């Protein structure tokens, strides 16, 4: 049994909120550099150049990469030999978000009730996904999610007979509908299988995977490659202003499902696909 004080969780979450909103991961930066090289549209290239300059200003001047610093999505894997002390874990996570968003000059974008809509003024509560694993480690991924792209995400409850072609159509439909609204070049997280909510969580989790790493399931890897190619043929382009870079990556996660179903969750992210992971 290993004891971890929840204050450590708070402190780490706070730092991760600030880090994720100012510094993009290396894999995402590499995608952008490659896109600048490959883009065929002149206006598209200009947009991509602006995005590179934006990242530089963000890290040097400590200005958030995007003003929509998102709702704080937390994936936390807890080793079953860990015992948290010093308070309630969920409160500690939200306290980390609160401090990160206030001390880090991040935007407070959360309203207390979906219809009454009063801003909570500290960006809490976070969306928290818990997972219990073996061992005595805690792994936290903090992923701020902006809603320009979140609003364009979809769930399709396909029939088994729709098969892989049905999945491809669902993804392409979601990307076409998203178009310029989702701030392309996008990253597409796809969850196939499970049930209604599982496919959505898988899709979100897929966005936190390194964009230069494909699925280790051979047919899924092929599907990721094929879908990315098809998406980039849509000519939506950077900013939706036309061009050959509409998406940076398609990341797919799968899970067993029911004999009667083929759920597909598509979580769309903009070019600012932010996520930071730490192990405690």
């Amino acid at each position, binding site marked *: 049994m290993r004891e971890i004080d929840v204050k450590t969780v708070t402190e780490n979450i706070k730092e991760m909120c600030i880090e994720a909103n100012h510094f993009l991961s290396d894999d995402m930066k590499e995608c952008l550099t490659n896109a600048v090289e490959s883009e065929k549209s002149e206006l598209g290239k200009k947009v991509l150049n602006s995005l590179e300059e*934006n990242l530089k*200003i963000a890290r040097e001047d400590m200005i958030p990469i995007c003003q929509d610093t998102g709702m704080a999505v937390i994936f936390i894997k807890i080793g079953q030999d860990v015992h948290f002390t010093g308070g309630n874990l969920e409160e500690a996570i939200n306290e980390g978000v609160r401090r990160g968003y206030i001390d880090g000059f991040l935007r407070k974008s959360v309203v207390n009730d979906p219809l009454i809509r009063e801003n909570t003024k500290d960006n809490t509560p976070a969306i928290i996904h818990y997972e219990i694993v073996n061992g005595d480690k805690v792994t936290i991924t903090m992923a701020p999610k902006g809603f320009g792209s979140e609003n364009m995400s979809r769930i399709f409850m396909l029939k088994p007979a729709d098969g892989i072609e049905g999945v491809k159509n669902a993804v392409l439909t979601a990307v076409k509908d998203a178009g310029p*609204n989702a701030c392309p070049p996008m990253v597409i997280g796809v969850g196939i299988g499970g049930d209604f909510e599982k496919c959505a969580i898988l899709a979100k989790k897929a966005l936190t995977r390194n964009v230069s790493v494909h699925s280790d399931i051979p047919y899924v890897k092929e599907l990721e490659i094929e879908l990315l190619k098809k998406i980039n043929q849509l000519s939506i382009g950077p900013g939706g202003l036309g061009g050959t870079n509409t998406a940076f990556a398609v990341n797919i996660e799968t899970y067993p499902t029911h004999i009667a179903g083929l759920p597909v969750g598509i979580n769309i992210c903009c070019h600012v696909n932010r996520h930071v992971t730490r192990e405690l």
Partner: protein
Amino acid sequence: MEKNITAPLIGSEIKELKSGDYVYITGTIYTARDAAHKRMYEALEKGEKLPIDLENNVIYYMGPSPAREGRPIGSAGPTTASRMDKYAPKMLDLGLKGMIGKGKRSEEVKSAIVRNNAVYFAAVGGAGALLSKSIKKSEVIAYDDLGTEAVRKLEVENFPAIVVIDSKGNNLYEMVLQSC
């Protein structure tokens, strides 16, 4: 084509703007997004005065992150414009000439742009740090209680934007999809 324009906008200059033009805007613009639009719309329905004069003005659909000390504003990129589609035609009919945002607009907004000789610009979404450098002054002038969604008066210098829907109703987003 690259063009330098001033805000508030001038009718004859709007006519010259074409979908796909890259413009640099200098002058005074206002921010308003979801909550401020809802409040302004309700004010109009009750016959009350708006906190800003719409005549020839530009509204930037934007809610910034907080400014660090000594800076006019935090990160300041565009938000999705379609959420303001319900309110935009009425504002255009009252004299609004320009909107800056990102993403698609409805047919109703497009028609209102054409009948009022107005223009819809896109700024680069997700480039809030870069765009903040073109904002020299920011002042909350209404609805302070809305926090990031308050109405702000901005002084901008060479603020970069792209003409998406011009005064003739040409739409760059549709043009790029048809060309493939």
